[in-house]
């Protein structure tokens, strides 16, 4: 049966938003994979689930919103996957017997700095809303990295977050500075 034009336009708008939401959930699925790996190797299932759920909600929300948010979510997930994997791989293959505080600080901060630098370079290609991009992508990448750094405890998490913040901040400040 044919619906009234106004009712139908509302239904179409709902279909549009629902379609975007379903796609966003699917595209946010890597967050679940990272959470599962984190829960398996970091032995802190509760924290992994909490951070993973936050990451999934953030990524889904950003992709659903679209525009700069979706671009930031995709970039954040890509860079965040590296930030997640690098410390684990490095410690597993090279520093198996040298997992002291200094090494954890060094590797996690360096990974965070690298991730932030990559996001900064990506943001430089944007014509507008770079700060929003850096904020959202940095948040996603930090949460991904945090999932990996749970293995190293609070020091690992803090150094990763500090690394991302330190390397993205100059890009944000530079872009906001008047020409």
């Amino acid at each position, binding site marked *: 049966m044919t619906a009234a034009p106004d009712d139908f336009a509302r239904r179409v708008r709902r*279909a549009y938003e629902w379609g975007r939401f379903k796609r966003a959930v699917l595209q946010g699925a890597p967050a679940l994979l990272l959470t599962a790996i984190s829960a398996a190797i970091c032995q802190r299932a509760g924290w992994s689930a909490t951070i993973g759920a936050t990451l999934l909600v953030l990524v889904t929300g950003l992709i659903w919103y*679209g525009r700069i948010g979706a671009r930031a979510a995709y970039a954040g997930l890509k860079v965040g996957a590296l930030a997640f994997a690098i410390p684990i791989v490095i410690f597993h293959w090279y520093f198996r017997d040298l997992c002291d505080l200094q090494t954890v600080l060094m590797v996690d901060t360096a990974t965070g700095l690298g991730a932030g630098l990559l996001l900064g370079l990506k943001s430089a290609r944007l014509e507008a809303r770079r700060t929003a991009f850096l904020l959202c992508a940095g948040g996603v990448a930090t949460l991904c990295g945090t999932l990996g750094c749970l293995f190293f405890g609070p020091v690992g998490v803090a150094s990763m977050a500090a690394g991302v913040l330190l390397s993205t901040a100059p890009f944000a400040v530079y872009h906001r500075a008047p020409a």
Partner: protein
Amino acid sequence: MDDAGRMALNRNLAALADGERAAFDPVYRTLWPLLVRFIAGISGDRAIAEDMAQQAMLKIFSRVSTFDASRDGLSWSMTIAFNEYQSYRRRRANALGELDETALAEVPDCDTPEAIAIRDDLREAARSVLASLRPQDRETIVVAITDGQRPAVSAAAFRKRLQRALTQTRLAWKRYYG
């Protein structure tokens, strides 16, 4: 639709795919008359066209976030509309098929001359279809209907045999009576 309109539709669809909600109204206003005209053209029925255009519109907007900006928006939308119309036709054909089977199951139970004639016709039709089956299939169906002595096979094997016999019966019925 002229080239400029087509390009504008492409631009708006790409913007909508990117999450630009302001592009919703222009896309909606552009697509609606095109969809109704397109479906009316292929179905030859204006009332169906409006219903189908609504279905197609819902599908298009629910999938617009997957729209690839390098494709032609008009062709993309019309392909979805055409598929929606095809699904509708298939669904209708299936529904009509089910309707016919329901009608067949309702054999008149009274003793009017028409009811007796219908029953005789159906009995004769069933007999000729059964006669065309392999003896083993025929036996299986008769045993199942009359709850008679089952052949010396397991229950699962009998069920399988009955299923095969019924499939053959359906095919034979279709062959004789359409």
